[in-house]
């Protein structure tokens, strides 16, 4: 009896304190999400100042069968994701391994490598425009010193996307930090036991570090995929999708449809297609995790 009373008082407080967030979620997240499903089935050219007209699946049909730019943007986004995610993961892991050494002043290095991740996206994008500047940028200055060809980077359709992928490594500090936490969670006894058995550096990495780190890799992989499919700021600021359609990524095209051309129904349909793509990819990764992710407590048969 006594317990229940306390519980109910707690529960009142709980609901009271949670209510702003809960209401916020209902009004500003859930409702727009539901609304966007409906809008995606309408022809709503907001600029023409006409009410949304229900057209069923026509937006989806147009996107899939009549819109060349939709497929181009999808292709570009996959290009970006397949370039930036593996590269980012590998670099973050290497950095984390280096920063996991027990050295004096290592925390300073950790801070330095994490620092880029806290700078605002727009500032970073503008900075990289200069780094990639074909005539005065530091990248081409170095390439020229080495006697290598100097591409036009953001102004060359062939190099614009690689440039964006290289740039994405700037934000590697976030996954590095998570890897670092994962590395520090690996019990040192494993390494000691392996050393007694005569394991070398590579064997320790291959048979202890990697398996023990696999849940962290899994997490970073999923977050990386989701993030890379949503790339927007850098492209919006640096290339606006150009030259031509070389960097027209999915979310940029969605943004253009929604907020430049005001095709709200069309843009909503695009958003839902993106949701399905990201969901599918994430589920695939989760499904595959059974084969390569190991949990300490798990018993393999």
């Amino acid at each position: 009896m006594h317990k229940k009373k306390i519980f109910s008082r707690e529960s009142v407080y709980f609901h009271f304190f949670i209510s702003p967030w809960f209401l916020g979620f209902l009004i500003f997240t859930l409702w727009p999400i539901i609304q966007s499903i409906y809008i995606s089935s309408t022809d709503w050219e907001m600029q023409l100042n006409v009410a949304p007209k229900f057209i069923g699946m026509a937006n989806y049909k147009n996107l899939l069968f009549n819109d060349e730019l939709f497929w181009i943007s999808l292709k570009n986004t996959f290009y970006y994701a397949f370039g930036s995610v593996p590269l980012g993961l590998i670099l973050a892991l290497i950095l984390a391994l280096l920063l996991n050494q027990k050295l004096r002043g290592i925390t300073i290095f950790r801070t330095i490598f994490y620092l880029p991740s806290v700078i605002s996206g727009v500032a970073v994008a503008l900075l990289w425009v200069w780094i990639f500047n074909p005539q005065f940028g530091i990248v081409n200055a170095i390439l020229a010193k080495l006697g290598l060809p100097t591409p036009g980077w953001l102004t060359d359709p062939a190099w614009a996307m690689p440039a964006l992928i290289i740039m994405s490594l700037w934000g590697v500090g976030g996954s590095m930090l998570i890897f670092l936490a994962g590395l520090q969670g690996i019990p040192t006894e494993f390494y000691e036991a392996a050393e007694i058995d005569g394991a070398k550096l590579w064997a320790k990495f291959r048979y202890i570090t990697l398996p023990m780190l696999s849940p962290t890799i899994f997490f970073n992989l999923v977050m990386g995929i989701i993030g890379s499919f949503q790339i927007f700021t850098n492209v919006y600021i640096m290339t606006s999708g150009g030259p031509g359609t070389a960097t027209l990524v999915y979310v940029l095209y969605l943004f253009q449809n929604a907020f430049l051309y005001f095709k709200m129904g069309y843009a909503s349909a695009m958003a839902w297609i993106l949701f399905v793509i990201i969901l599918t990819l994430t589920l695939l990764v989760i499904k595959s995790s059974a084969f390569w992710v190991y949990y300490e407590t798990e018993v393999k048969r």
Partner: protein
Amino acid sequence: MKKFLVVLCLGVMFLVSSVLYAAPVEIRYIYWGNTEELQFREEMIKIFEQKHPDIKVIREGNPPAEYDRKLTAQLTAGNAADVINMCNDWWGQRGRQGAFADLTPFVKKDKLDLMKLFWSFPIKSMQSPGILEGLPYILKTQALFYNKKLFEEAGLAYPNDNWTWDNFLEAAIKLTKGEGAQKQYGVVGFPTINAAWMFGGDVTSSNMKLVVANNPKTLKGIQFLRDLIFKYKVMPTIAEFQAMGTGVRFSTGKGGMMIDYSWSIAWLQQAMHDPWDVVQLPMDPATKKRYPECRADGLAIYSQSKNKDAAWELVKAFATDPDIQKYIAKNEGIPALKSIALSPEHLNTFKEGFKPYNKKAFVDAVSYAKLQPFGGYYNELGTAWTREMDLVLLGKESPEEALKKFQTVGNDILKRLTK
């Protein structure tokens, strides 16, 4: 007793004053502008408010990039500002949607002779079928900017109003010298729309129903522009432009000529050390015609506004109040009011600290100006155009291919927007 009388007097005064004194009418005015433009409009509003103490203007200034979104949202919600800043390159779209009130009755009531007060171009471009949707207050046109020092160094006479594109090319070749990052180019700014128009070509039909870009005249112009880069090498490539843009190249003396807008004057006055001037755009050698672009910013009244009379006062004042128009002139804008724009006071006086320049070149351009087809919700057409032109100027696509593709894509867009 004395006390009672004082209270009584105060009471009567209060009653009388509250009857006589009506609170000022409030009107909302939505507009765009960067920091300087916002300040500029603020000053214009202040002049208006001083002359109309009965009207209070609620300012809704927006950064240019957000304006379309803000206005569209307001119109969709049915709660737009009473006075709306607009541009003639919207091609009467908003008027056709019923978003703007017809200004004709107000014009008639106040007996304004529009064709006398203004050039016909801005007025005509603010008419959509049946209604006058706005009154212009400031004009923005193009001219050919040239670096006097570089012309002298090359032993060339300055450009003049009789120049054709042949003279332009000839000078561009002679002005180009050097190599690499320090190369000096003959041309450092040439909007693609001017290339499309330069030999009498066009991008869209005049009623904006069709894309007609795929025609020999437009093709000739785009080819000309492409040749400046690849054949004559008198204009930087896109990569070089990214390294250093039009304005910086010109202002630092690395370019002999550029086609640019009147709004660049204020910046150039401060940034450029070499002597420079402007002249009208060169002519098509065959027809002796020139095709500069002209935009006119104007004010419109929201069709659902409850304060249309007060709103009209602001619209009228911006366009015709001599003090406001003179303020525009004094700050290096082209006033829409003809009498002020053509006055020697405007043409021959310059803002403090500014070097004199051929202001008349910009004013003259209004008479044969064209309207760019990418404003307002034709934005999407503009994106498609830029996409193709990028590829042409990168040398990745031929002008023929680009125009053909643009025509197909563009017509789809127009079909949708005019349905």
